[in-house]
């Protein structure tokens, strides 16, 4: 008997909505992105993990830097992998090892989680960050945006990097759901090994955080 895995918080749709039509992006200043970009220096080569969907503009932006950009589109990946056999004894740790099978020696310098954490239950988020932490080195910086408003879209925004300090939020759904309201204390527990560096309140009902792995 096959069973559906539940990666997402209960209000989330089980299946992705119909093929999203092109939507206009909503520009927003991102001081966290600006601060992160300042960390790219000289000739060092960086490894950047973007957990959001591929976007040509974002890829073009990072092409300015000497880096390898990894794009995982994690929300879509998890939606595409939602059945398993209970006999296999899968748990979330195993699933993330399977879905994000990075080489053991790969350590990311920057991780862009954008607004994705708002779509995970605590246990799933904890497993995800535990898996990611195995691919962090001392000094890895994580960028995430946590909703401070009561409701969020039922699907994560497609985030497009425009320039050093501007991103665009491209909505993928107009249906709203309740936000998980992760507080600073929650995040501290759910991001073991990371400590908060900075946070910035955004006008769009999100607070963006930079975390440092050490």
């Amino acid at each position, binding site marked *: 008997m096959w069973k559906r895995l539940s990666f997402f918080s209960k209000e989330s749709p089980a299946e992705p909505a119909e093929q999203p039509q*092109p939507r206009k992006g909503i520009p*927003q*200043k*991102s*001081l966290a992105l600006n*601060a992160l*970009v*300042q*960390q*790219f*220096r*000289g*000739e060092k*080569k960086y490894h950047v993990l973007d957990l959001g*969907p*591929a*976007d*040509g*503009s974002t*890829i*073009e932006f*990072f*092409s*300015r*830097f*000497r*880096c*390898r*950009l*990894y*794009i*995982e*589109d994690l929300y879509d*990946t998890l939606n595409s992998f939602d059945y398993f056999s209970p006999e296999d004894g899968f748990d979330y740790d195993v699933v993330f090892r399977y879905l994000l099978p990075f080489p053991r020696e790969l350590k990311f310098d920057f991780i862009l989680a954008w607004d994705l954490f708002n779509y995970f239950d605590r246990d799933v988020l904890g497993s995800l960050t535990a898996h990611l932490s195995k691919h962090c080195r001392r000094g890895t910086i994580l960028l995430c945006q946590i909703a401070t408003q009561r409701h969020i879209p039922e699907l994560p925004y497609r985030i497009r990097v425009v320039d050093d300090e501007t991103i665009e939020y491209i909505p993928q759904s107009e249906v709203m759901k309740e936000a998980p309201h992760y507080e600073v204390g929650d995040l501290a527990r759910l991001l073991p090994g990371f400590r*908060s*560096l*900075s*946070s*910035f*309140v*955004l*006008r769009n009902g999100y607070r963006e955080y930079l975390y*440092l792995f050490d």
Partner: protein
Amino acid sequence: MWKKNEPERTEPTMQQPSHPQPVHEQTLIGSSLVVKGDVTGDEDITIQGQVEGKVVLKNNTITVGQHGRVKADLFGKVINVEGTVEGNLHAEERIVVRKSGKVKGNLEAPRVTLEDGAKFKGSIEMDVVDAGSTTVSSGPETRSGEQTQKKASEPGEFRLGSPSPSKT
């Protein structure tokens, strides 16, 4: 009588090229074909069928058409993806993933273009050394030949560990 006033007819003439054009060989793998194994050679290829293995056409253009389904590493001069590819792509000049394209794999090329709507999971090497640095563009190709500049930011502009909540 002799229709003297009738305007002269001019027969349409075929414009002949002043120089003979080089013959550009191109192969099509049709949508009903399944190829298992390596494909090598010296001509452009368009794949509308299924290919599993490896495609090595380093001096040529590889096009995975909208109906093409490829599970292979691709080595070409130019690689265009309109269909589905699972494998690593290495191009001497550029890789273009069209809006209908889906790629799961790693991309290495001096230029990478990802059109809006294209699906991609994998990694992109931004440090390919060729005639220039890696150039990546979104949407239709608009930056031909442009070289990217690596940013050399001054150290110390952002101090780690200095929380600075602010409103934007």
